[in-house]
């Protein structure tokens, strides 16, 4: 678009200011992880590496990260399967109740976490009579992760059309072979993007987790919440946060590259 020089400059500087505000709290967390002050005073009275050393020796933190990774992986795997199935059904077929099904997928994320949390807590304990454990957390997380996979896959299916699958069937491939060799490769990057979001969503979830985790299950957010207001532990939590943000660059970078390469390929074929 032919924007005037002035509007370009205004937009660019607004973008700069917004990003600065977005990163200000993260920068504060970063600096605090080196600060000698435990009560987060600004400017920091002095600098120390003590918290970094403590964080890496903290067995509780490492265990919590492992628990969170396990839960997020399991929840992501379930939501990948269910999300793909439901998006194939909604995109390829017209049937009675289709709108209701699409609302049903969105509902677990549209309704507040505390409602999902107490509803599942009540159902697990009083209706099903199940002990809360790591499994109940996985079931709860998978339920609200389905939507991220669903959104990515259905957007891809809309763009793909069915001609390649029809060609595959005409050439003698069975339904499973067609899915494995034709549909799945075209969905791969959408599945990756949806799966990554699902993983992130589950990894950071605190409210639903509070209500569905068994007594011995400490995910990373629960560990953080338990330690946030302990004076000796708050800087250690800052260290964990810094490590997580820096670590997240790697998956985001790869997701971007795959999405970028994918976008170019599809543009190449469309024109």
């Amino acid at each position, binding site marked *: 678009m032919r924007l005037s020089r002035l509007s370009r400059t205004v937009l660019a500087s607004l973008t700069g200011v917004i990003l600065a505000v977005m990163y200000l709290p993260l920068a*504060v967390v970063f600096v605090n992880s080196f600060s000698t002050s435990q009560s987060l005073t*600004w400017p920091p009275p002095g600098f120390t590496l003590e918290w970094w050393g403590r964080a890496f020796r903290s067995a509780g933190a490492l265990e919590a990260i492992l628990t969170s990774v396990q839960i997020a992986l399991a929840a992501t795997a379930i939501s990948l399967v269910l999300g793909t199935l439901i998006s194939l059904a909604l995109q390829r077929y017209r049937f009675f109740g289709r709108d209701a099904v699409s609302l049903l997928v969105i509902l677990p994320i549209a309704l507040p976490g505390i409602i999902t949390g107490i509803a599942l807590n009540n159902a697990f304990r*009083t209706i099903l009579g199940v002990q809360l454990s790591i499994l109940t957390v996985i079931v709860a997380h998978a339920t609200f992760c389905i939507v991220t996979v669903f959104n990515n896959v259905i957007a891809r299916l809309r763009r793909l059309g069915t001609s390649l699958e029809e060609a595959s069937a005409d050439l*003698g491939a069975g339904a499973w072979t067609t899915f494995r060799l034709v549909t799945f490769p075209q969905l791969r990057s959408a599945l990756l993007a949806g799966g990554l979001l699902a993983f992130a969503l589950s990894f950071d979830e605190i409210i639903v987790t509070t209500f569905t985790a068994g007594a011995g299950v400490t995910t990373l957010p629960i560990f953080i919440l338990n330690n946030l207001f302990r004076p000796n532990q708050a800087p250690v939590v800052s260290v964990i*946060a810094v490590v*997580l943000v820096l670590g997240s660059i790697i998956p985001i970078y790869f997701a971007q590259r795959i999405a970028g390469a994918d976008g170019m390929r599809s543009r190449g074929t469309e024109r």
Partner: protein
Amino acid sequence: MTSETSARTHPASAFLHRHVRVRLGLLLSAPLLWLGLVYIAALAALLITAFWTVDTFTGQVRIEWTLDNIVTVISGSLYQAVTLRTVGVAVVVTLIDIAVALPIAFFMAKVASKRWQRILVIAVLMPLWASYLVKAYAWRSVLSQDGIFAWLVEPFGGSTPGYGLHAAVITLAYLWLPYVILPIYAGLERVPDSLLEASGDLGANSWRTFRSVVLPLLWPAILAGSIFSFSLTLGDYITVNIVGGTSQLLGNLVYTNVGAANNLPLASAISLVPIAIIFVYLAAVRRTGALSNL
């Protein structure tokens, strides 16, 4: 002829090909069983609990049908005030997020070079990976009496808003901002550049083009983003605990009644309020096609 050979080699596939209903059933049965059994059943059970009562002696839920909880929530002045406050906060947070997201999303989608576009998307996504709790706590430290905000504005005679409803609004708007930027950015990407050029050729200035061409096409995406900020605010209680001082939102009332007060029926009755608000909101937003823009 080819389909005959495949029918001979893949009888199951051929059967599926001829029976659309069976195919659909196979695709839908697992996800619908999961969502129906796990989620809808749980939700329905919770809603029914709102019509039960708690035994004052044992603290156990007693199955005795009553409208008392509903009446308490609808007519209690505390609940009315908190509902109004929560909806107000959710609306303000959503408006702030849309106002902030529009310029940055527009710059990303229509002004920045391909290279910068990719960098900016990463920059917007990265804060999502910092823990929600840590970000809320970071704002607690930013806004504290001897935090960086006070340090920055005090030379100019300003002061920190301190902990309270304002701090809660700022923090919630900050937390949900990436969720609002991303759908709006995706929506802008779908607006063809040629339309903007045509509008410019016909004599419209940037602002007129934005208002008459971009905004109407972008509505579904903006509303899709607003679903996140609105509904996430409606149920939040942790951020409010961390930076909100003594102010309470609906989420806090539900939480206290589940935990300390141990009154699940009343908590269920209170949670009917955000459920109803969100259903009305989703129904209103659905016509614009926003739900397929999430």
